[in-house]
């Protein structure tokens, strides 16, 4: 099973981007992601703009949606300058289509998730409106991130449909639909919905599934609490803003304290206003966590696909076993188990030896076929496990790296916030002191400054 050859698009010329030599389906390059950025080495991808549009649906109803401008630039130029090669507009539903397609065609891959469709885990001051400029902006970043994730994935980056998504504005949807992925997806979906129980589950996948469940629940809990923390912090800061007015009104009736109060009031205003920026920055961290919340779902999808495959395999083995038993029964003439067939033979009399011969022959044929099928299913399963596990390893590394970076930037954000706000309070000190002991204050502040 060649990873790259899973996708076949009759009638489509391979784009020059495809590197025939390396696209041999080998999965050896999994360990270091960056070395595999075939696509990203040659082009730069960005989602550079978002635009609100009004169009008509298939039902001729008016709808408003946001379109995103995808720009690709070739970096393989003689002078090292990148040149704009393509720029086209896509909407969120097209991104969804692309992802669904990838999910179906690469069952062993932890497919990068899309940013949330609707704002979730928001604190109440943040708009949950899909058309809100801040939301659209965060989604633009999220969509760009998605494209970059796909483009840097060692397997997905070679996909033709993905390439066309970036480069072919018209007819793309039709091309996707021609792959027949929908059909495959539908049958998968049905199978997934049916209740089935795998007899011999792979322990590693069971554990992984358990992990993805836990990860999902812990991250969503984290996001929920963070939203509440943000709400409260917002409250704390904004209430400080009330001081601003009172201090400045109070300053009007004071002679000597007036300036100090006025200044303190001003500081309180600045302090209260600063929370908007702080929480906006924090939203980026929340988005990073959200990506991994959705990644947990993608991880589970791989586990489920493995389960399904295992189930298929077990069913085939069971089928084969029962056929073999039937065949044996016919050959020896004994009925070991009670069956309808046994009943009918008893009721309607014995069949002729010729008939029996013919039936044995048919069964033997089926057994042979079944053995072949089982063999290929086994092979397929092993291949799946191998590929899936390689991708899961890659994912784990990516996850550790990303989340560590996210935590660092979260900490850096907190540090700069502490510095900023602590710094304001420092400037408030000399104001409170009026002009007295300015020199000693100066000395003292320099000491503290080394800290801020």
């Amino acid at each position, binding site marked *: 099973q060649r990873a790259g050859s899973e996708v076949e698009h009759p009638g489509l010329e391979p784009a020059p981007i495809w590197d025939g030599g390396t696209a041999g389906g080998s999965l050896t390059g999994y360990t270091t992601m960056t070395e595999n950025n075939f696509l990203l080495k040659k082009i730069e991808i960005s989602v550079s703009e978002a635009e609100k549009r009004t169009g008509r649906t298939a039902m001729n109803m008016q709808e408003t949606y946001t379109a995103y401008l995808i720009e690709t630039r070739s970096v393989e130029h003689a002078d090292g300058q990148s040149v704009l090669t393509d720029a086209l507009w896509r909407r969120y539903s097209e991104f969804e289509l692309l992802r669904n397609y990838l999910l179906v065609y690469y069952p062993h891959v932890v497919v990068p998730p899309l940013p949330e469709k609707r704002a979730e885990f928001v604190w109440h001051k943040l708009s949950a409106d899909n058309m809100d400029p801040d939301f659209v902006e965060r989604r633009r970043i999220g969509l760009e991130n998605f494209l970059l994730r796909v483009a840097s994935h060692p397997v997905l980056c070679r996909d033709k449909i993905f390439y066309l998504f970036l480069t072919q504005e018209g007819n793309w949807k039709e091309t996707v639909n021609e792959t027949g992925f929908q059909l495959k997806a539908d049958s998968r979906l049905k199978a997934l919905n049916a209740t089935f129980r795998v007899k011999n589950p792979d322990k590693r996948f069971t554990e992984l599934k358990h992990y993805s469940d836990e990860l999902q629940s812990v991250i969503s809990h984290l996001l929920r609490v963070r939203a509440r923390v943000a709400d409260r912090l917002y409250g704390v800061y904004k209430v400080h803003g009330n001081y601003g007015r009172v201090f400045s009104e109070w300053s009007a009736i004071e002679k000597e304290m007036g300036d100090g109060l006025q200044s303190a009031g001003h500081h309180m205003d600045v302090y209260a206003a600063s929370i908007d920026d702080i929480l906006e920055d924090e939203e980026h961290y929340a988005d990073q966590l959200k990506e991994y919340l959705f990644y947990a779902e993608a991880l589970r999808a791989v586990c489920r696909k493995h389960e399904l495959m295992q189930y298929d395999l077990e069913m085939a083995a069971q089928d084969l076993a029962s056929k073999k038993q039937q065949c044996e029964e016919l050959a020896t003439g004994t009925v070991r188990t009670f069956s309808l067939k046994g009943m009918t033979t008893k009721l309607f009399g014995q069949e002729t030896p010729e008939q029996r011969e013919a039936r044995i022959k048919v069964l033997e044929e089926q057994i042979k076929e079944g053995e072949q099928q089982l063999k290929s299913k086994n092979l397929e399963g092993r291949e799946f496990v191998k590929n899936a596990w390689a991708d899961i390893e890659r994912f784990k590394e990516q996850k550790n790296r990303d989340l560590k970076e996210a935590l660092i930037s979260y900490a850096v954000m907190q540090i700069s916030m502490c510095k900023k706000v602590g710094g304001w309070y*420092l400037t408030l000190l000399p104001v409170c002191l*009026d002009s007295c002991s300015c020199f000693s204050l100066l000395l003292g502040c320099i000491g503290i400054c080394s800290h801020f």
Partner: protein
Amino acid sequence: MQDAQAPACLPVPGLWSSESRDLILPNGGTPAGTSSPASSSSLLNRLQLDDDIDGETRDLFVTVDDPKKHVCTMETYITYRITTKSTRVEFDLPEYSVRRRYQDFDWLRNKLEESQPTHLIPPLPEKFVVKGVVDRFSEEFVETRRKALDKFLKRITDHPVLSFNEHFNVFLTAKDLNAYKKQGMALLTRVGESVKHVTGGYKLRSRPLEFAAIGDYLDTFALKLGTIDRIAQRIIKEEIEYLVELREYGPVYSTWSALEGELAEPLEGVSACIGNCSAALEELTDDMTEDFLPVLREYILYSDSMKSVLKKRDQVQAEYEAKLEAVALRKEDRPKVPADVEKCQDRMECFNADLKADMERWQNNKRQDFRQLLMGMADKNIQYYEKCLMAWESIIPLLQEKQEAK
């Protein structure tokens, strides 16, 4: 920053603004100097010392401490130990130590009001706390009250007239205050009554401009302070709610870390860091509750005391004006003013002088107290942010080392 206020301080803000300092970058940056926590409190302490120069000329020191709970069959109450050290001749011994309860303070304040009607008597803390059902015997309540009572006595001690008051002396030194109270009851009931029964219906012709201004000022002052008190309480409430969420937020990272291998340590680090920050925040809210709110309360109560003195002053003036008018009506032709009217005028002028002096003293105290208050508030906040800063900075190496080792 205010223009010419502090020219030498102006260049400094640039130093501590975050823009001019290097931020720690996620990849490869070095964490900023986490060396010695040059606490800003040292600076504050130095400045507070400067304020206390007049302490050397003091000859009377009073402190309130060691609250004790007394449970009797009839009632339960708290007494406070009052220690007095003095070189004044009015005190026989250099040092006294007595125990008094809130009632005694209340008695003292009433006596002071009676015997020094022309002076501004510092306020006592409220008898009962209005907001919420507060346990009167809880440690926090008793401590807050002790501080307020200490402040009350210190204000009297600092006063050039009130500190020589006979009742104050008795309050500080008497072994059996109750005996004195009973004895005094019979003798002193008449004193000060004269002020009380003055015509209430008489309307002032004109209040002197400066006292009218004080009245207006007090109205606005009390109003603004009341608003600030409400805001401060609201902030503390918000901070406590924030704290509740933070306490849930930190452990989630711990839960997560249990799932992870390589990420376990960084996640645990973040959890601990949030824990440190919430501890620092708790300290901040406690400090605000203990230091910030009582000062506001005292000044709100002060404005009430002030208003009542102003009212008494108005009454004295009214009495004088009424007498003057009566004289003018009856004996228009006689130029000589009767002696009792003259006495009344003297009393009014004395009152005005005393009140003006007290008002000035009060203004000075207020300026100093609020400067200290704002500074303390800024300082406490700086300390809080310093602590959070250190907590967050401490986890950066934890995250980076792992990164590089990879």
